């Protein structure tokens, strides 16, 4: 990857405001005006206490929720580029096989043949080549989530959004999945925005770490310059973790 493409901005958010109105007409400001740009190939992790608007931010980027004001630009051109979203649960169609689930998201401008090749490539990348004809219920939770990730990757999106994708898995599986995700990220150079409430996960994965506070403001925006593979037992990791945890404590205390 050249330096030029590396520095290309794929997500540009300016002054993004989101205000909810409840049934009694009271207004709740979830995002008070976030500005953020993400460059090509970044793995950005966002941590924040629950209720800080992490998921709302991701949903607005994905077009699932309406923003109140501000701009969100994705991709290079004016046209809204393809996005992919990996949810907390895999959200596969239970009546379709793994392969059919991937074929389901085929973008209009892709030919059947080339998409089929992509499907097999990415199913191989997540290690699901042997179960392409299985139905979701025949897979373990971790494998279902892998299928969800393969589905997200096979459309080769401008940005891959992930909302606590491993939080429903047991810790051993989650740990495996993190390693796999990093391997895939290094293989593909995919831009990823990854939301979590787990600081350790955020530091293990991210090369940029954003902390949101209770008001939905960006409280910290750190570059994570730790060498990979990262281990929790590494001295540098522990130091970075301690510093981040302290910052995060501070953010929480201000509430």
């Amino acid at each position: 990857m050249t330096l030029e493409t590396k520095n290309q901005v794929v997500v540009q958010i300016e002054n993004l405001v989101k205000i909810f109105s409840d049934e009694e007409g009271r207004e709740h400001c979830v995002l008070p005006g976030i500005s953020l740009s993400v460059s090509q190939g970044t793995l950005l992790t966002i941590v924040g206490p629950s209720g800080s608007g992490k998921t709302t931010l991701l949903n607005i980027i994905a077009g699932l929720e309406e923003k109140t004001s501000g701009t969100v630009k994705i991709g290079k051109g004016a046209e809204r580029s393809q996005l992919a979203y990996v949810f907390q649960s895999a959200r596969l169609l239970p009546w379709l096989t793994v392969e059919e689930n991937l074929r389901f998201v085929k973008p209009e401008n892709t030919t059947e043949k080339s998409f089929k090749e992509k499907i097999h490539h990415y199913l191989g990348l997540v290690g699901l080549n042997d179960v392409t004809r299985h139905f979701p219920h025949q897979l373990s939770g971790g494998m279902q989530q892998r299928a969800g990730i393969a589905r997200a990757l096979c459309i080769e999106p401008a940005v891959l959004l992930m909302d606590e994708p491993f939080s429903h898995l047991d810790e051993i599986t989650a740990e495996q999945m993190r390693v796999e995700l990093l391997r895939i990220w290094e293989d593909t150079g995919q831009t990823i925005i990854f939301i979590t409430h787990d600081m350790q996960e955020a530091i293990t994965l991210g090369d940029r770490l954003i902390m949101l506070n209770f008001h939905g403001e960006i409280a910290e925006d750190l570059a994570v310059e730790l060498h990979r593979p990262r281990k929790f037992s590494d001295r540098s990791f522990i130091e970075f973790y301690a510093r981040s945890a302290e910052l995060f404590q501070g953010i929480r205390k201000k509430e």
Partner: protein
Amino acid sequence: MVTSDSKLSKTSLIGSFLYGFIFNRRWITFAVLILCWHFFTLVVDIDLLPTPGRVLESLREIMRNGIFFEQLGDSMVRIGFGFSLALALGIITGVLMGSRDFWNKFFQDLIVLGLSLPGLVYALLSVMIFGIGLTAPVAAITAASLPFIAVNVREGVRSIDKDLLDMCRVYKIDRVRLIRRVILPTLIPFIMAASRIGFTVAWKVAVLTEVFGASTGIGYQMRYQFQIFSVRGIVAWALLFGLVMLVIEYGALIPMERYFNRWRPTIEKVV
């Protein structure tokens, strides 16, 4: 990690029915029933109560002169039209009720009324209004089974997974694919359940309508047997009627359910 057996292979249906009938001891049900019946006729001294043997004679008669398939055919045509119409209108009504609050409120009380009115009311009214012909039974069948179908389909629409719809929005799934791959597969089990109930209701109302306003069909045959006061005739026709229902159950409904449920985890042993 993968569950060991997929259980997707299906044995042949007639084979599995016969297997179940013979080896799962389902034949016992029928044997006990016939035996009880036989002894009951011996113990109770009522001349009119036919023994299984005499009913069998009637059955042979009905089957021998080809009258059965002729009459069944006439009934089936009525049911076919009425049930198809009920299914089409019921699905439309159910989808409207499930997706739009206005239509739900609009149809709500009509449906409750429709569900609770006895089939006899539809049969009597339609014969009085439409006279003898195809319209009367079709109208009665449609009116009687539509509410059952609408209610089930409404629940189906409500059960559509909002998370899956969100997923489809992110991946920019077009309308056709959304309906074909997400909406329909969700609705099909509900439509199947609806058809099951709706079809049973259709049969019952069809027979009733034929009793009052037809000169052919299984219902008419029953009225005729009633008029000549032949208990064994009625029992014979009822048995054949039941047999047809079993054939439809094993020949059409169960295979369809198996096909549509092939992706589901099997839950053969709950208890």
